[in-house]
């Protein structure tokens, strides 16, 4: 169980440290395969592409990942989801095989099973190491993905709605998803795999914060 998150002055701080929560930067740089050192990219190729007298000297300090991990039960949920997806793919092929008796379907079946098993084993763990979120009185900030990474940041003043939702599968694990919608058609920010209670608290807290930022959020 992840600890109760209480919004202090600017960001959520875990009270219960039963599960270690990553600090700023810290282990992440070295922890995720292929992702190592992304924060140290400043300077890569910069000298080669200055043009038009525009000053390209990096002025911003390097990005750090969001502070909080998702609930430790999330990998289990992702595993079940992956297994279900793979099972569905296998079932379709089995039915096709039974119906047609085509020999090459056996080959695709085996490939699906092997790739699917690898996916179900690797993806949830990998995802768990990457998925992070942070919310303070300025912005909501997320990092999701496993092969493709995606950082999202939405200023609080631009948030339109905050929703929480549980799929039946999520409820099985006591998890929930918080969806933060802005006025854009580019899609909402989503923090999935939070402890259900924590998600509700986060949503309530964010709602309160957003209420203090009236405006049309566009």
């Amino acid at each position, binding site marked *: 169980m992840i600890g109760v998150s209480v919004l202090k002055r600017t960001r959520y701080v875990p009270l219960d440290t039963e599960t270690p929560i990553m600090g700023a*930067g810290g282990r992440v740089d070295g922890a995720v395969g*292929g992702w190592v050192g992304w924060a140290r*990219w*400043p*300077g*890569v*190729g*910069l000298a080669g*592409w200055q*043009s*038009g007298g*525009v000053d*390209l000297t*990096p002025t*911003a300090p*390097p*990005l*750090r990942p*969001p*502070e909080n991990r998702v609930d430790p039960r999330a990998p289990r949920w992702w595993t079940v989801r992956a297994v279900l997806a793979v099972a569905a793919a296998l079932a379709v092929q089995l039915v096709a095989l039974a119906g047609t008796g085509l020999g090459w379907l056996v080959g695709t079946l085996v490939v699906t099973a092997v790739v699917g098993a690898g996916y179900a084993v690797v993806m949830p763990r990998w995802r768990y190491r990457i998925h992070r979120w*942070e919310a303070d009185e*300025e912005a909501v900030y997320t990092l999701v993905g496993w*092969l493709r990474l*995606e*950082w*999202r*940041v*939405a200023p609080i*003043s*631009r948030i*339109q709605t*905050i*929703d*929480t*939702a*549980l*799929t*039946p599968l*999520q*409820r099985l694990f006591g998890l929930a*998803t918080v*969806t933060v*919608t802005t*006025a*854009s*058609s*580019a*899609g909402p920010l989503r923090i999935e795999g939070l402890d*259900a*209670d924590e*998600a*509700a608290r986060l*949503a*309530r807290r964010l*709602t309160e914060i957003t*209420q203090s930022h009236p*405006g*049309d*959020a*566009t």
Partner: protein
Amino acid sequence: MSDPRPGAPEVPDGLVPDGLAPDGTAPDGLAPDGLAPDGSTHNGPSPDHPAHDGPFPDEGAASTAASTAEAAPHGRRPRSAAEAAPHGRRPRSAAGVAPEGVAPGPGLEGGGPEGGAWLRLDPRVLAVFPLRQAGALIPLVAVLLISGQGQGAWQLLGALIPVAVVLAVGVSKWATVRYRVGGERVELRGGLLHREQRSLRRDRVRTVDLRANPAHRLFGLTVVEIGTGTSSTKEGRLSLDAVTVAEGERLRRLLLDRSPGTPHTGTSHTGTPHTGTSHTGTPDTGAREASAPEAGAGAVGRPSDPGVTRVPPRDAGTEVARLHASWLRYAPLTASGLVAVGAVVGTAFRVANDAGVDVASWATVHAAGDELDAVPLWVGVVALVASVLVVAGLGSVAVYVEGWWGYRLTRESDGTLRLRRGLLTTRSLSVEQGRMRGAEVAEPLLLRLVGGARCAAITTGLDAKTSNRGALLPPAPLAEAHRVAAAALLLADPAAGTDAPLVRHPPAALRRRMTRAVAPAAVLTLAVWALNDVLPGFGWSWPAALLLPPAAALLAADRYRNLGHSLRAEYLVISQGSLVRRRVALQRRGIIGWRLRQSPFQRWAGVVTLDAVTAAGAGRYSVVDVPLARAVELVDQVNPGLLPTA
């Protein structure tokens, strides 16, 4: 468990959640306590009853959505989490549209006595409606008259029935439809079979467009489209079909006027148009609060006075751009001709079919077919392509002339940008400056070859993708496009907007363009080579396929050449694309969020894609393949301190 902000449930993407009025009143008849900020009704999943909140216990998505569903029956219902998760978007519902069946709350001005009188559409619409339907009816009537089975009188009766129905529908529409402009709302109700009741909050009205087809113009009428900024949903619009041109003009000026003292609130643009840019986003709150007291006083009109509020004085506006005859040279190079030709041919065939004419049986067609059989295949192909090109070119010119005849872009004294155009069907489009989030100059390849470009506004409430919505200029010289874009954004110099000098992207971006273009082309070439033996008669395809990789490389080089970005004082400028080269100037304060994406390949190349998320236009605009440090720097310069940095 959804936790929308009060008032938010009826707010579509991109709109002002006016439910957040500082005094906490919910304007749309929603009981505010249903959405109390204390969270008491949020029904978060508590350990005690995790699965029993909301009427759909099995679906798990509980919620305030459920409670709002009762109040806002716009097809809103609690979505199951399973449904919600994949797309996660709130169901769009109308902007301040009071749905049928929801009685306006007692505090609503629109329903109160201070609202304007209910007005009818112009009676001349009775003549227009049959005229417009006549085109569709002619084939039907003709078929019934010519090929009808019955005897004379019955035959005539059969033909008259559809006509009578059309007339009856027109009369009933005119007789039942009423509209009025109240102090706070614009309302429309009526319809006999299809009953309709619409109500838009005046402070959410963003566009008032006038459109008149030839039938309308014959009778001096115009269709008024009132939009609230929801780009695509029907609920956010209100259409008056039709009123007199003078009435349409009055409505346009009345509803778009943002000068202080008018009953609705919002950005004010009087006098100095430059203030427009400083009123986007959250800062309007002050204005809203300030003018709220005036709303009561200003809104009160005599019930007998249909105007309700004073109409701002008519003005000609200052001209920003007008049509030049020489621009016609760009017309054949637009794709609209092909589309138009297809539409015309399709319609012709359909009408001919309806009328019972069998096109394929025409002797001439047969004769042409016979002659074509006699000539070699390639002659036929060349002739066909040439004729299609000629017809499409002529069609494009026709579409250009019809669409852009009399084009004028003006800046009205109230700060709105107004575009007028059209030969047969005239159109007038007004864009409130406070909604402008940027501009785009696009150069499709053909136009680019002759130095032409298009220019469109990036605004909330207009969908940049739908054909001409947002277009500020017909295809025109590139410099003119940049100039109009700058003028639309109130910039003195195009170099501060779309014509800014750009920062080139790193060499990794070139490598990625090359890989992504050449690799598929090479695979395709290899596939053709492998199939060469299998497909006899396509011996020429193998050498032809050899041209693919070089062509792809050229495309990739051009794509890289066009990649670039620049951060100006007020705008983020992004350039990309080859087949359609686009320059986008996006207002910094119009950016409502950021997204950084990185695929494994980008990770190897050491670059990311930075998306500037906005409520307007395409929703997001991408800076492709920049080093992460540059991306972070861009975000930090636009929104200092937003990204948590180490």
